[in-house]
């Protein structure tokens, strides 16, 4: 679309609904009449709310701002293309099996939103509740899982502790009698699973656009203009854009955007890799994670095994990883599932993530009056996508955190209220 022909503010466009009937109708015209899923507007001079980052979190924030809070004069600014960051690079695991109070209710809220997301968006995000199983390889690990499973139940989250035979019935393909890491049992969250990452971004983009949100791609934010302790707008590669409120949702680039606003943050950027094998017949029906090293695996609908492991371990803004991690991830995978040893790797890639000092995200207010921060997602922000957008929109609209993200505030580091699931302390590359 040409610059200058964007619809006027607050016009919400009627989107054509996707349905079986629409499919049939469009089949008669050779599928030539489908309309684009969202507009491509030129940026306006001012918005009530500007969100930086067109990943799942930024798009979900804009969608819920418009849908639940009636704030529709909103722009999402994306330096590349929608969903081209970590939203399009992750291994798509969705779960809420957390131990700590700051995390568990938030992730459970997100999981509940996932359960209704396709219907809400009229867009199939292919959310598949195939179950997420964490393996235990010692008695003490079984005890630790029992504790976490009980904590989950106290928070109203489903969890099942499986013994060894239970795990065997669930997924017989594992190495049960490995000499070093025999399987003792596992913690299962049946409502966990996977979703189609691109579809989540596209469905949220289409939903936000139809409510009047401007999605502006190829628009890099290069500076944040302040007056005193207020933000007045952003410098971008497409000119200055003024805003009433500014929200950051830029995943691995939070440190850089924070610096533009004059904030030093408890975050380091690190690279995490992911891997896909050649297509195989159905083998891994669930999401399975190894308990004696970092490895997680599922199988995509196309048949590829999708898996990942640890960070590369050093600060990085390069969206590519290094060979030692590939070797380690693959060897853990083979010790957990020897039957995949001859599978060929098809692709691997990296994404840059914010690793925080306690391994938990930061969603909330900042020292600047109208600047809001959504970042620090570490390994696990895909599952948070709808929940993160939901609480972030609430926080921006009401200028205070919702109960669900109150414990994930930026102030917790100064105040000593860490939400440290793994107990590693302030060492980002260990979380």
């Amino acid at each position, binding site marked *: 679309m040409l610059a200058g022909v964007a619809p006027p503010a607050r016009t919400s466009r009627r989107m054509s609904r996707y349905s079986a009937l629409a499919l049939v109708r469009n089949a008669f015209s050779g599928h030539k009449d489908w309309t684009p899923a969202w507009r491509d507007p030129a940026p306006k001079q001012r918005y009530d709310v500007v969100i930086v980052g067109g990943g799942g979190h930024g798009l979900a924030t804009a969608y819920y701002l418009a849908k639940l809070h009636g704030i529709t004069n909103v722009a999402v600014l994306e330096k590349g293309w929608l969903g081209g960051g970590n939203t399009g690079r992750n291994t798509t695991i969705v779960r809420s099996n957390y131990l700590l109070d700051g995390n568990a209710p938030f992730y459970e809220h997100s999981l509940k939103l996932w359960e209704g997301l396709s219907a809400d968006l009229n867009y199939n995000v292919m959310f598949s509740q195939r179950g997420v199983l964490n393996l235990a390889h010692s008695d003490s690990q079984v005890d630790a899982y029992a504790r976490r499973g009980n904590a989950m139940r106290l928070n109203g989250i489903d969890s099942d502790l499986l013994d060894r035979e239970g795990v065997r019935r669930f997924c017989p393909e594992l190495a049960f009698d490995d000499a070093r890491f025999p399987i003792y049992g596992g913690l299962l969250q049946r409502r966990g699973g996977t979703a189609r990452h691109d579809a989540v971004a596209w469905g949220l983009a289409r939903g936000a656009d139809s409510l009047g949100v401007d999605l502006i791609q190829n628009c890099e934010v290069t500076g944040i203009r302040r007056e005193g302790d207020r933000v007045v707008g952003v410098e971008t590669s497409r000119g200055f854009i003024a805003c009433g409120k500014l929200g950051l949702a830029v995943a691995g*680039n939070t*440190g*850089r955007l924070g*610096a533009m606003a004059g904030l*030093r*943050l*408890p*975050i*380091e*950027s690190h690279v995490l890799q992911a891997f896909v094998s050649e297509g195989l017949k159905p083998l891994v029906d669930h999401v399975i994670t190894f308990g004696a090293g970092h490895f997680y695996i599922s199988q995509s609908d196309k048949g590829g095994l999708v898996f990942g492991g640890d960070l590369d*371990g*050093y*600060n*990085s*803004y*390069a969206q590519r990883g*290094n*060979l*030692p991690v590939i070797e380690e991830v693959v060897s853990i995978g083979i010790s957990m599932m020897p039957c995949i040893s001859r599978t060929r790797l098809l692709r691997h890639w990296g994404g840059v993530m914010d690793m925080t*000092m306690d391994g938990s995200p930061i969603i909330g207010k900042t020292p600047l009056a109208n600047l809001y921060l959504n970042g620090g997602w570490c390994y696990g922000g895909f599952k948070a996508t709808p929940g993160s957008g939901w609480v972030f929109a609430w926080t921006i609209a009401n200028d205070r955190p919702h109960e669900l993200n109150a414990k994930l505030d930026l102030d917790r*580091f*100064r105040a000593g209220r860490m939400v440290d699931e793994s107990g590693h302390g*302030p*060492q*980002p*590359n260990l979380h």
Partner: protein
Amino acid sequence: MLRIPCPFCGPRDHSEFSYLGDATVTRPEAEAPLDEWFGYVYLRDNPRGRHREHWHHAQGCRQWLVVERDTLTHEILGALPAREGSPAAGPAAGKDAAE
């Protein structure tokens, strides 16, 4: 593989080292105000570009090094023993090379 030029062992694969992080933060005096301690423990410049960082040659000479590396390109610009490469911001510390 990154190749780190250890001043004691010569160029070695980074898999022989363990990584600690930003070498430009300095430990405050015990009596320093809480704010300084907060900054030291939790806050980082996290630059995209040149970064001075601590690596431990755990499977080599077991010395701590300050390595200067570009976090965008992974290019390694030099390494010094930590006791010489004093973390007090040197010429290149914390600069954003891409800016």
